């Protein structure tokens, strides 16, 4: 089936995308390794970091996915006012800069947070958020919404005709449709969450309560910044890649290959509505868990908005430009790779998630520095890196949809002699509007909140909004920083909403 499309759509973009991803992930790692002098190798503390990293990522992934299933099911089978808004808000935690999200979580679960104030008021002992479970709580807060969206896509991919068929046969929707769909969607969603948590650094450290909560990424940070031991950093980064690829292989092995087949895009009608109360509870719990910290971010940020210095608004404009460029690049790359298909593409889609941000930045710096001044290429480099980092999410959204279109419509299009640009314009893009919009929105919003590579490259004139926010915090201006955090949240959500809703218009009918 890949042959049909491959011959009609040029493969050059796919190759370029693949080269870019490999260069930014493995290439930067090699660049760091070549600068290494003989270091001290891995210590017992590093192995402890590996154990902690894997344990928290595994628990976070399982919990996120298990909690996401009832919420996704409720969203899939209920129509209610505010459903669209809720789905958009689901994107919010994932898009927040880490420190903003942590402060929001602490306003709810922290020592002086709502929860502990409530417990104290009724005479119960305090609970502490700090420790292993605090890290997991934060990771679930970040990733549960993403898991819901990814699993919801699985539900939406079941054609209306299938529900009709199962209803007419008096069969079980859960056993015949939902279970096979979940078997296909859940491993991928869990993998994505696992990989995100694998490279966690600030969340794990801040909420983990100390060196017990050392992750691999922190060990890499220490190796580069503290010891300037590039050899050890490269070794640790290899270890991180190995863990990521192992997880990807396991997820790939346990995912059955099946398609729900094609339908006529009718409105899904269901006869198995189940108990409304279950869905209400599932959605209410998720909404409260996600919305309360966000509400605190907003309340905390409003007074700071008027204190924002002009430079922050300039940084905001710069961030938007970078975000839009990254989104376009990212979606183009994801689409070209998804059209190519195959195991190699799957691996390429995983690599950026397992990459260490610091190694990537350092490697790029080593590669770029001999030729141009790093600050003069800060914006293009940020766009390339952000597009690549968002690629795994875009591919997760676009890949299965492309595979479905290929298997369901590929032969029809071939028989019509529809190829090249026409095929892309008339068949693929229209059928992929929803995942394309979601992917673009995600890529844009992720790029808004990113504070990775830019810290190594940015001069004064390339300051992005997250960087401006951190600089405000560094200058004691916590109120203004909270205002900048709110601005960042609003802009990220707006970008996400425009792409996501723009693409879903008419498609939801």
């Amino acid at each position, binding site marked *: 089936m890949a042959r049909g499309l491959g011959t009609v759509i040029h493969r050059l973009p796919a190759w370029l995308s693949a080269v870019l991803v490999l260069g930014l992930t493995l290439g930067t790692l090699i660049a760091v390794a070549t600068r290494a002098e003989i270091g001290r190798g891995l210590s017992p503390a590093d192995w402890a970091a590996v154990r902690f990293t894997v344990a928290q990522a595994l628990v976070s992934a399982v919990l996120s996915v298990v909690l996401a299933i009832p919420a996704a099911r409720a969203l899939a089978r209920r129509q209610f006012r505010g459903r669209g808004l809720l789905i958009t808000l689901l994107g919010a935690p994932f898009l927040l800069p880490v420190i903003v999200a942590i402060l929001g979580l602490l306003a709810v679960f922290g020592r002086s947070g709502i929860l502990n104030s409530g417990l104290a008021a009724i005479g119960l002992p305090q609970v502490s958020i700090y420790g292993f479970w605090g890290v997991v709580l934060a990771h679930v807060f970040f990733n549960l919404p993403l898991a819901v969206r990814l699993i919801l896509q699985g539900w939406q991919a079941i054609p209306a005709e299938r529900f009709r068929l199962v209803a007419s046969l008096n069969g079980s929707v859960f056993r015949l449709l939902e279970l096979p769909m979940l078997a296909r969607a859940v491993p991928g969603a869990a993998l994505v969450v696992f990989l995100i948590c694998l490279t966690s650094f600030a969340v794990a450290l*801040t909420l983990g309560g100390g060196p017990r909560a050392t992750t691999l990424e922190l060990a890499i940070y220490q190796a580069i910044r503290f010891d300037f031991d590039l050899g050890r950093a490269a070794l640790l980064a290899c270890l991180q890649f190995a863990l990521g690829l192992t997880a990807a292989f396991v997820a790939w092995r346990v995912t059955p290959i099946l398609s729900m087949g094609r339908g006529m895009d009718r409105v899904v009608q269901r006869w198995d509505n189940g108990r409304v109360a279950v869905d209400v509870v599932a959605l209410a719990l998720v909404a409260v868990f996600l919305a309360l910290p966000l509400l605190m971010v907003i309340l905390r940020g409003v007074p700071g908005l008027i204190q924002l210095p002009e430079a922050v608004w300039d940084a905001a404009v710069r961030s938007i430009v970078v975000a839009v460029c990254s989104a376009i690049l990212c979606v183009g790359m994801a689409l070209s790779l998804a059209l190519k298909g195959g195991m190699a593409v799957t691996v390429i889609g995983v690599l950026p998630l397992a990459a260490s941000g610091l190694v990537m930045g350092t490697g790029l710096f080593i590669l770029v520095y001999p030729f141009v001044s790093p600050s003069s290429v800060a914006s293009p480099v940020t766009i390339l890196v952000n597009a690549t980092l968002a690629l795994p999410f875009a591919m997760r959204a676009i890949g299965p949809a492309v595979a479905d279109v290929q298997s369901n419509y590929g032969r029809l299009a071939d028989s019509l002699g529809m190829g090249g640009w026409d095929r892309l314009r008339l068949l693929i893009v229209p059928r992929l509007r929803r995942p394309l919009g979601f992917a673009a929105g995600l890529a844009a919003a992720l790029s808004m909140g990113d504070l990775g590579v830019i810290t190594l490259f940015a001069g004064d004139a390339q300051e992005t909004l997250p960087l401006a926010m951190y600089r405000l915090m*560094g200058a004691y201006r916590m109120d203004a920083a909270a205002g900048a955090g709110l601005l960042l949240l609003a802009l990220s959500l707006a970008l996400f909403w425009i792409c996501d809703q723009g693409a879903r218009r008419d498609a939801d009918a």
Partner: protein
Amino acid sequence: MRTTLSIGVAAAICATGALAETPVLNVMTYDSFVSDWGPGPAVEAAFEEVCACDLVFTGAGDGAALLARLQLEGKGTEADIVLGLDTNLTAAARETGLFAPHGVTTDLDLPVSWDDADFLPFDWGYFAFVGNAGEEAAVSLRNLATGDAKIIIQDPRSSTPGLGLLMWVKAAYPDDAAEVWAALADNIVTVTPGWSEAYGLFLEGEADAVLSYTTSPAYHLIAEEDDSKIAWAFEEGHYMQVEVAGKLAGTDQPELADQFMAFMVSDAFQSIIPTTNWMYPAKLPGDGLPDGFDTLLTPAKALLLSSDDAAAMRDVALEEWRAALAR
């Protein structure tokens, strides 16, 4: 957007025009120094008034990131001066062999004697735990460790204040540091990657005190007219952070670099420091310190390990810290 662009283009053209005639002095420093709220903009204006040159600051993360950046750039670095290392980093910085003697001879106003041919201080401060006025304050490290006050500290592996506390405990208790850390473990709410996160968490009410500087209350007092924050005075003395700058041996502007190093300890530079970097000036300006600084805690004893001692002890101290807190 279009106006922003055209202004940008115009500025770029002017800048290239200016480049042709005026020499450029590149100073690499940490991020918060160059931000709009840091000393950078005022220092740049003041120096350009006297130097007939273009002073360009480049921010590179925090202090530790600064050294890593320099090590990455190596001999090819365009920087003429590196500004913002502290004494815990100078031994490693000297080892790179990239620095040249600063050649400045002037009496500095530090609580300790200073004798370093390569690195010249531009400001300094005392580390301290900062808490809320009116609440019970610990009176020593030991007292803090045995009490039940909750504190937030920074990770010594990713933050300069975190490393400062490591050295503080080591300087106060050279032989019992591990034991002190073990006793402190139950007081530590959490460990953050950097100063900003820790201070933000403290202001949100997550702890009774946070590791910061004796000068932190001055910010709240002067900039926010808020006197609710105080630094806790500790009997063992307070460890110092001395921030230094160094001239690179490979500079293509040696005279300008020398001029900047001399300017750095002059009144024009030093009077900017207290209310932008919120640290003590290395050489007291003629006008003295701004109002509000007189209310700050003056520790009875200043602790500071030499840069060689600090470098030699670092790995052992870090392992003691890690082992005590990982339990």
